[in-house]
């Protein structure tokens, strides 16, 4: 991988971040007086004056923008009016809880999605294939909050096996993670299957067969690594879906993570926290996309050639 490739991806990621910060700034400014919005309605005139001073609200938009940008770069996202603490602190203490949920869901996605996709591809057209594909369509169509509610109805209300909400044990984690992981697992299974099918029909697979390489070895050494390339990209794309899904799922299961914090903060218009969550998620997404791009370049050496702009003929 040449440094130009990594550099251009880094530049792209930074640009996305800058766009997000600018977007938040524009929304913040366009929605009214930030002093009124960011502070509570009962804020004292003195507090409002301090706030105006600090964010330079009496200066030009450009200066305001630069002030905002500097503050964000220093990790200063304002103060949550609910408990008066810095918004970043409020957000950061929710991160581990969400990460626990997110990684468990990701694990479920991989464990469910990839093997079922591979098996479906290897036994194409069989009942296994059809069953897997039916499940992927179902998993893709069912809204995750509805799935969560069904699970609660069945396993908490009716069977009384699992707790319906809260955190604290593995059993609390099970249903939210399953709910969150299913939709992504469906997508991954579908992509793994089609990617495997593509690879299995490539000439090099026939060559491997002609060379007398054993079936299992062909699949493991030749097919899987090549099939992994598109799957990695899709996985990266699904992480955005996981984060979006976490917002509803955490609300359904009262899982005290970032998503629930975001929904509660939106409801109570605790906007310092809202913007902190949005910027943190944007940052995460940029990092994830960067990692996916790098993994992609590492898995597929041809990608650099693809990335170059081809001159017109």
């Amino acid at each position, binding site marked *: 991988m040449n440094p130009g490739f990594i*550099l251009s991806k880094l530049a792209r990621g930074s640009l996305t971040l800058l766009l997000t910060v600018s977007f938040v700034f524009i929304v913040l400014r366009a929605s009214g007086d930030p002093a009124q919005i960011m502070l509570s309605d009962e804020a004292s005139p003195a507090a409002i004056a301090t706030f105006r001073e600090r964010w330079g609200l009496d200066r030009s938009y450009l200066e305001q923008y630069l002030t905002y940008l500097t503050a964000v770069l220093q990790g200063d996202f304002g103060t949550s009016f609910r408990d008066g603490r810095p918004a970043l602190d409020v957000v950061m203490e929710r991160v581990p809880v969400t990460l626990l949920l997110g990684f468990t869901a990701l694990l479920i996605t991989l464990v469910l999605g990839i093997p079922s996709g591979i098996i479906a591809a290897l036994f194409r057209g069989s009942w296994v294939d059809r069953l897997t594909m039916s499940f992927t369509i179902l998993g893709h169509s069912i809204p995750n909050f509805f799935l969560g509610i069904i699970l609660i109805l069945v396993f908490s209300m009716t069977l009384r096996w699992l707790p319906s909400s809260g955190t604290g044990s593995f059993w609390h984690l099970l249903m939210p993670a399953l709910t969150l992981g299913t939709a992504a697992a469906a997508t991954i299974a579908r992509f793994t299957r089609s990617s495997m099918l593509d690879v299995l029909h490539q000439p090099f697979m026939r060559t491997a067969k002609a060379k007398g390489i054993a079936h299992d070895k062909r699949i493991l050494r030749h097919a899987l690594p090549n099939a992994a390339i598109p799957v990695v990209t899709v996985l990266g794309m699904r992480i955005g879906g996981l984060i979006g899904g976490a917002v509803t799922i955490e609300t359904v299961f009262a899982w005290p993570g970032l998503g629930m914090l975001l929904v509660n903060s939106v409801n109570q218009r605790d906007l310092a926290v809202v913007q902190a969550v949005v910027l943190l998620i944007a940052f995460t997404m940029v990092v994830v996309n960067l990692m996916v791009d790098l993994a992609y370049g590492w898995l597929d050496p041809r990608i650099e050639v693809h990335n170059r702009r081809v001159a017109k003929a």
Partner: protein
Amino acid sequence: MNASPTKGLVARNLVQTYATGRRLFGPAETFRAVDGASFEIAEGETLGIVGESGSGKSTLGRMVAGIEAPTSGSISFWGETYAPVGSAAWRRQRRQVQVVFQNPAAVVDPRWTIHAQVREALTTHENLSRSEADDRAQDMLALVGLGNMGQRLPHQLSGGQLQRAVIARALVLHPRLVICDEAVSALDVSVQAQIVNLLLELRERLKLSLMFISHDLSVVRHISHRVGVMHAGRLLEIGDARTLFAAPRHDYTRRLLAAIPADTPRQRRQRDLTTFAGS
């Protein structure tokens, strides 16, 4: 120059360079597709351009057609210069100069009847009543031998018929110059002959100037008054068709001519002897 400069096309030192890659630091890499071509096309004359693929002949054709502005050099078209690509003046100039492309199926709207497509070209440049436009489009289609096929959609025509339709769409504007860029290369040999004969006939009837670009030397010899040979972006030599084919001055031209399939074994023997003697 035998023709007066305002009657015909005069190209001087045409150069076209393309960027081939953007580097992070340093200057961009460039590639000279056409490197200093100068020639004339007189009114009613057919200039053939031969060369292998990648020799820059298509790029040259696009510059002569005014579709692409040259990096440097000048074109005088019946005394005028081409307006900037895409401008209103450029669009008006389109009726003077038309292009017939290699793959007719790719250059027609798959959802319009060929009559409607010919009519669209006409009404773009002339304010005509519906019936007048219909009639003139119909006349043009009849002229290219598609008189009873106007209401067909492109996929209902054969490749040769579709190329006739494309020619009709170009000629309905009564252009002065038509550039045929590999216009028959994608067609069957028998169909090629029909299209070439059609072009010859229309050339006389409409007093067209033609620029006929092809890698097929025998077709070019058949249709052209004068022929230019392109290689690696350069116009190696240009001259009267018969002279050039009989006594090529340039070594590359000789090798190119040697590749033409001969009509009879005797011709072939004779040519081989002259080629070896010459090289």
